[in-house]
């Protein structure tokens, strides 16, 4: 994975020849032309949320202007148009992660809701006192707290896989955590705080060897790499639209149909029922059983537009471009002798977390902000990771397909300014 800069340059040239032209890509994102504090916006907080291409913004406008009504219930024309558009988006997302069937794609508010859904619904029929759930120390809080709820409700306990100093998952320790009481593995595909790409196919294979299903948090993976849920054999795979250049308030729970079929509904309401009487109700088929209430219709359709956008560029070009950004940023930031990079696994997505000796990340973040550079400072909703490295916070630059080497230079100039203000 440690391709030399020359190799990376060659691959970038190849990618550009294939049609990945970052300046053209940038022109697709209206917000990137904004200025903040009278300097150009340098947006490096994509791990928190990515900006939206015009096609996604237009999709939302198009839905409300031409094809909006409630879905799956009207006999009238507009309802059918909206239903067709939303189901077309579901099919696009199915293809995007290569799920076997569209009914395995459940629209939810985001990855957080997806994990809460599985923890509550799957947990209800599968977790008993003393049962064990394995997760890693580098999970986002959204893949920890729902399982803590499940522990409180069902009496289960959490087992935590450690990471080494580079931020790699310790696979031998992972294998040893399995017991006769292990019921589920909940694991990130890419760490939001460190950038580590976990060996998810191996993680799943080992779990399946023990007869244990796996939920994968794919939030930070889907914007950066091709995901094939059938090839990795994930049982559940969750991600949010807003990190994938789509709208906020919409996300996806993928689950194997057999697992989802066996699970009780998560929320009750309209859309998710077959028949309701005061003696009892029967529930709709997948995916509607888990889609109670009127969904974020325009958001789901626009998430389909985001998938179209990413597919149009192609992951070959995106991955090569982002790999170049990561290696360039690692080289430039690594050149500061008082900066420590947190998370140095050989296999990383385009995320770089770091701390500066004697300067708190929040102070650095404020100064960078005035240079137009938006980075995340804090614990990144991953406090166990901060504890693991004995820091309270880090500065995190997380890159997207529209970032450039010039923007990394702006970050480095901003870091020089931080050091200047702090008198170093």
């Amino acid at each position: 994975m440690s391709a030399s800069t020359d190799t990376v340059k060659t691959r970038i040239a190849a990618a550009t020849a294939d049609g990945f032209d970052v300046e053209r890509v940038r022109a697709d994102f209206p917000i990137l032309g904004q200025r903040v504090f009278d300097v150009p916006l340098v947006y490096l907080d994509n791990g928190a949320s990515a900006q939206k291409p015009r096609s996604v913004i237009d999709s939302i406008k198009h839905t409300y202007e031409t094809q909006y009504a409630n879905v799956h219930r009207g006999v009238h024309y507009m309802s059918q148009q909206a239903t067709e558009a939303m189901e077309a988006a579901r099919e696009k997302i199915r293809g995007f992660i290569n799920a076997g069937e569209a009914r395995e794609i459940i629209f939810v508010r985001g990855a957080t809701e997806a994990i809460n859904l599985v923890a509550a619904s799957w947990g209800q029929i599968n977790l008993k006192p003393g049962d064990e759930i394995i997760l890693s120390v580098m999970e986002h809080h959204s893949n920890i707290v729902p399982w803590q709820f499940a522990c409180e409700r069902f009496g289960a306990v959490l087992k935590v896989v450690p990471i080494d100093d580079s931020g790699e998952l310790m696979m031998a320790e992972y294998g040893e955590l399995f017991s006769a009481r292990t019921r589920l593995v909940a694991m990130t595909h890419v760490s939001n705080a460190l950038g580590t790409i976990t060996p998810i196919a191996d993680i799943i294979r080992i779990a399946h060897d023990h007869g244990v299903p796996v939920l994968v948090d794919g939030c930070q993976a889907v914007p950066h790499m091709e995901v094939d849920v059938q090839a990795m054999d994930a049982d559940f795979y969750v991600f949010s639209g807003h990190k994938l250049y789509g709208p906020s308030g919409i996300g996806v729970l993928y689950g194997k149909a057999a697992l989802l079929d066996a699970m009780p509904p998560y929320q009750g309401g309209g859309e998710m029922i077959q028949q309701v009487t005061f003696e009892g109700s029967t529930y709709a088929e997948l995916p509607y059983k888990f889609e109670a209430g009127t969904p974020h219709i325009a958001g789901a359709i626009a998430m389909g537009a985001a998938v179209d956008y990413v597919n149009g560029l192609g992951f070959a070009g995106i991955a090569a471009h982002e790999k170049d950004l990561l290696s360039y940023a690692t080289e430039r930031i690594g050149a500061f002798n008082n900066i420590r990079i947190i998370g140095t696994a050989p296999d990383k997505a385009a995320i770089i977390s770091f701390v500066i000796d004697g300067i708190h990340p929040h102070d650095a973040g404020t100064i960078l902000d005035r240079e137009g550079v938006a980075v995340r400072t804090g614990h990144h909703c991953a406090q166990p990771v901060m504890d693991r490295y004995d820091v309270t916070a880090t500065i995190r630059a997380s890159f997207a397909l529209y970032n450039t080497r010039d923007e990394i230079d702006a970050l480095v100039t901003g870091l020089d300014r931080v050091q200047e203000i702090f008198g170093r």
Partner: protein
Amino acid sequence: MNALTDLYQEVILDHSRHPRNFGHAEDANREAKGYNPLCGDRIAIYLRVEDGVIADVTFEAKGCAISLASASMMTDLIKGRSEDEADALFGQFYALVTGNGEDAGEGGDLEDLEALGGVREFPSRIKCATLAWHAMKAALEGEATEVRTE
């Protein structure tokens, strides 16, 4: 860049690098903790209050330059003051950093702390400046629970 150099004045950097009254005085009789969940900053304030006067004050903290400097300067300022005076200073400081209230922008009794007025230009950082003050107020009022700014 004036706003930045206003915020990170030498006096603030000095207090953040060499915080005064840092530690945990054993004879303290009031204490409170403060936590800012947004950035993870933590502070513990220890007061020795005798006959309504703050005879001694120390603190321990992990945090950014703004929160450390504010805590350090605050302890210098309130030592030897009455509880009522400390409470009034809290009001003045709050007005200084938020730009709100009758005393906004005056802060005449705040001495070095007036340097923190620059934080007004950085709304996301005001909570850093006020963390120590909230903890001090909680300690004076004898609140046992941790105060949070978010």
